[in-house]
């Protein structure tokens, strides 16, 4: 029991450090949690991904681009309702205020992932690179899930 707890803590700290190890700052500026990709029907080549991006620094940080070796292109989009019409608007970047967070979530801000290099099923993992205006990059191993209810760490507000 004690051992399990210790291993859990070590794993937790490793998972926090790993994405940023290449740009190890003294203090972690950006933390990304609860990232997931929505599994899509087999004929669909446009997928969505969600995550919570926290900015722990005391300056605003801009998410400037997102990429992945698995997809030909990733765009930032905002789903919104205009006069009863569902629209998606491409965003050039996404600003995260100092000591604040932004949530990419179903029906709101999300990542649009184009043309996966293989059919993706729930249980698969995909590497996604989040690139920020301070020059840092977060590399997140993102699970494919069927439903939001499967999503780890996600709290719907």
């Amino acid at each position, binding site marked *: 029991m004690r051992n399990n707890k210790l291993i859990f803590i070590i794993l937790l700290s490793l998972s926090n450090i790993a994405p940023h190890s290449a740009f190890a700052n003294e203090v972690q500026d950006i933390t990304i949690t609860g990232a997931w990709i*929505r599994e899509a029907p087999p*004929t669909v080549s*446009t997928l969505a991904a969600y995550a919570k991006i926290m900015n722990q620094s005391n300056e605003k940080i801009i998410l400037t681009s997102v990429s992945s070796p698995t997809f030909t292109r990733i765009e930032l989009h905002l789903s919104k309702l205009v006069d009863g*019409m*569902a*629209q998606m608007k491409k965003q050039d970047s996404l600003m995260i205020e100092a000591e604040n967070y932004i949530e990419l979530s179903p029906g709101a801000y*999300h990542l649009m992932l184009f043309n996966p290099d293989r059919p993706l099923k729930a249980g698969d993992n995909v590497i996604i690179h989040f690139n920020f205006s301070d020059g840092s990059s977060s590399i997140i191993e993102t699970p494919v899930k069927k439903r939001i209810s499967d999503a780890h760490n996600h709290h719907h507000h």
Partner: protein
Amino acid sequence: MIKTLSSSKFLIPAMAILAMLATSAGFYISLKKSQQSTQANPGIEGLFWPNPKQMNAFSMLDQNGESFGLTQLRGKWSFIFFGYTQCPDVCPITMAVMADVYKQLALEDNNVQVIFTSVDPDRDTTEILFSYVSYFNEHFIGLGGSTDMVDSLTKQIGIAYYLNKEDNADNYLVDHSASIFLFDPKARMVGKLSPPHQKDIIINQFKSIQQFIDAQQ
């Protein structure tokens, strides 16, 4: 006053007129009341009443390539909504919610059908629609066809859609209605369910509308 009136020659005709007015007013009020009990909109959210839209003929293709029109709407309660299969966010959210709704309503033996209508006729072929709807539920219906076919349904319902091809010719986005439209077994559009869509809200709204419409028969 009464005394002076009573001596008047007009008393009897005046009383008769008053009596007629009172009777007809009473009759009018009771008529109004009876109309209210069967016809007024009781304030159910999303209910189209007292003038539900009777659908006219339309012609589309389902996910098996069979023709789908007014006949296929009759005899069942139908949920119809619009989207396109390459839509990554809003459409699969709605499909997943409707899969939950359908599962519960089917368990309770409700006579319902769920119909996804593609407003992207160029990309969403019959084969793609089959794969798409059956991913969410094997009983879901996927409608498509030519632009004229799609318009034969969207124009009646009164919704627009827009293909944003000028932004990106290959991976274009489509603006589409975010509402779910409800049709009764007489193929009348009796309700509109507005987003954000949630299972319990949809089921409650559906049951309220269904109960109200059934009570009008």
